[in-house]
């Protein structure tokens, strides 16, 4: 029985460490390769949140573990009788409250940053359909659906997002972007991709039978390549 208890505790410690490691490890793709300034800001905010909350996490789980190890009932050792400590209660109310106020600072700054579009250099429209995405380039008169979105890197791109039928959500993790596409409403996002490449995402709001197949591909190319591509598209259309 004594042995079993040791194993049980070992297991609990192991699970605790695994939990902390899993939550904190930067294995998420957007954490490793944030592709836009917004995604980088979100990552910084995430690390700040982890730093602030890790203190409380370790303290609480640690105290729990120590209490379980130390205060097992032993014959002849009576339980303590105290059950109040006003000062302690003030402390554990005030400190988390202060921590939350501190954490709200960077959260609101980042939010403001996401919210304010710098002067945009290319405007696109994203329209959700059951179950594909339609993209429009109003300036070029180009409209197509069910293919990769193509944008130039380094340029500030603003997108109006809406839907033709049910609610969808345009989600590209590496860009730090998720925006619901609501029918009858137009939502607004912006992004500026650092490097050329292919970025993947998919619809994030349940939109019916094939919600799981509503993929997003964004090909980010050089501005020259983009000009060539859009000219071709114009001719094709």
């Amino acid at each position: 029985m004594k042995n079993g208890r040791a194993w049980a505790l070992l297991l609990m410690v192991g699970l605790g460490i695994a939990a902390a490691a899993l939550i904190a490890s930067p294995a998420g793709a957007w954490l490793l390769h944030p592709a836009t300034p917004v995604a980088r800001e979100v990552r910084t905010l995430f690390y700040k949140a982890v730093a602030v909350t890790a203190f409380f996490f370790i303290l609480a789980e640690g105290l729990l573990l120590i209490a379980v190890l130390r205060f097992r009932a032993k014959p002849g050792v009576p339980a303590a009788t105290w059950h109040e400590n006003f000062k302690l209660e003030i402390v554990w109310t005030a400190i988390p409250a202060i921590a939350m106020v501190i954490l709200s600072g960077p959260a609101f700054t980042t939010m403001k940053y996401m919210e304010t579009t710098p002067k945009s250099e290319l405007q696109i429209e994203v329209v959700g359909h059951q179950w594909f995405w339609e993209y429009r380039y109003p300036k070029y008169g180009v409209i197509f659906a069910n293919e990769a979105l193509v944008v130039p890197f380094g340029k500030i791109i603003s997108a109006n997002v809406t839907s033709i039928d049910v609610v969808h959500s345009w989600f590209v993790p590496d860009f730090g972007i998720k925006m619901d596409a609501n029918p009858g409403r137009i939502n607004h996002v912006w992004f500026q991709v650092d490097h050329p490449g292919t970025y993947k995402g998919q619809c994030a709001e349940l939109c019916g039978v094939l919600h799981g197949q509503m993929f997003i591909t964004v090909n980010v190319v050089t501005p020259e390549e983009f000009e060539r591509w859009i000219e071709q598209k114009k001719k094709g259309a």
Partner: protein
Amino acid sequence: MEAGTVVARPGPYAEAVHPGTTPRTGILKWLLTSDHKLIGTMYIWLAFFFFAIAGAFAMVMRTQLAAPGLHVLRPEVYNQIMSLHGTFMVFFFTIPIMAGIANYVVPIQIGARDMAFPRLNAVSFWLLVPAGSLMLASLFLQGGAAAAGWTSYPPLTNRQYSPGPGVDLWILGLHLAGASSILGGINFVVTILNLRAPGMKMFKMPMFCWTVLVTQTIILIATPILAGALTMALTDRMFGTGFFQAVAGGDPVLWQHLFWFYSHPAVYIMVLPGMGMISQILPAFSGKHLFGYKGMVLATAGIGFIGFLVWGHHMFATGIDYRLRQFFSFASMVIAVPTGIKIWSWLATIWGGSLRFRTPMLFALGFIALFIIGGITGIWLALVPFDVQVHDTYFVVAHLHYVLFGGSLMAIMAGIYYWLPKISGKLYNEFWGKVHFWLTFIGMNLTFMPMHMMGMLGMPRRIYTYRPEFAIWNHIASAGAAVLGVGMTIFALNMLLSLWRGRRAPADPWNHSDETRTLEWTVSSPPPAENFHTIPVIR
């Protein structure tokens, strides 16, 4: 909390509630009863029946998701099963079983003979039977069950996109369940405010009664809003009223506001009574008073109140106004403070105690360990930019299961193991109880911890299959689900075996210390009809 001192002399409520009734036997005893103990027992049975079904749905989903590209379920069937899993776990398991345990325990804990309105109590229970059955039956109708998730966002639920009767029966089922909740809410609030034994002042009530009082008040305020929204959704479908349809001058986002105005407080409806159970089980098995009783009461009320101000944190990606998001974000972070008070107070309760690791205690300690994780990810999710990044991904699925499985379900298990000997009068096998705990604790982490990773990698929730890059984490989660399945089977067998041939339970099978013994442990197991021969007077 000094409910331990019981002086046996008749108080003003000494006369019986049902004078002159002869006890019925057989099936009629259950069908016609208005006894809170029988009704509470039936609530618990019915909730576990729905739990088995919703749990089986989860198993089927984890089988479909065990590897990418499997064809266990067709996509439309997956969506139905997924929607019913959520709906049943919330509305037909967690909320009713909390009501069931409260039904059984609260009147005894406050020294009453029954609920204030015994017949209304029976109505509350019986409404749940057609509610759940109708919704289940919709699986077998043309077009199948509702498939828009437990959140059922329009326009997907409009007739145009969900033509079959599934959504109509979903609405009807929730309407009935909501009516059951509201009637129960009235009953609990009146009972707790009016039927307390002489000397049982509000601030002498056991913590569980406080959490039930706050929970039932939340139910009374929030559930009518849900009922209104459901009616609007129904008339949209039946008469084309267009409340939630942009082309008809309505707004799909309005549903999200109304739905979450109910459904965020519903999280506390599901968690607060569990916290009440934990607040009694920890002292019982530590031989120590609950730490900071008044602080705990205030924290409970605080969570209940702030819980009404945070619904918008489910809508950070919807495109609602910047200032609204700021408000909802900060309010959601504030909830961490009263939640923290509870966690610190529980830790202070066991600190210096004389801990006995019986099955209810293991589940209570497991609750704390897991709920801390759900609380921390909850703070992260309150931060708008991070929330937008992982909203509607598996990260949220992980978070909500740490709150509702790690929180509510662990507490429910703790409560069931704690009060089962009282309810059935039978003891259960402690060894298999502990096996159940360890399988649940390990299986829970195996299943839901990897979901944080899936979400961080960008795997959306509610998809019937996924891109290959998410495979490894899904393998682990499905293996974890299998462990949970084995654990729950052991639980069911252990409980049934205990009912069939368990040893008789004494009045207080847990040997409570004098400070931690609440009234239910002063009467026989199961308690006599009308609970007390003479109503206790609390000193």
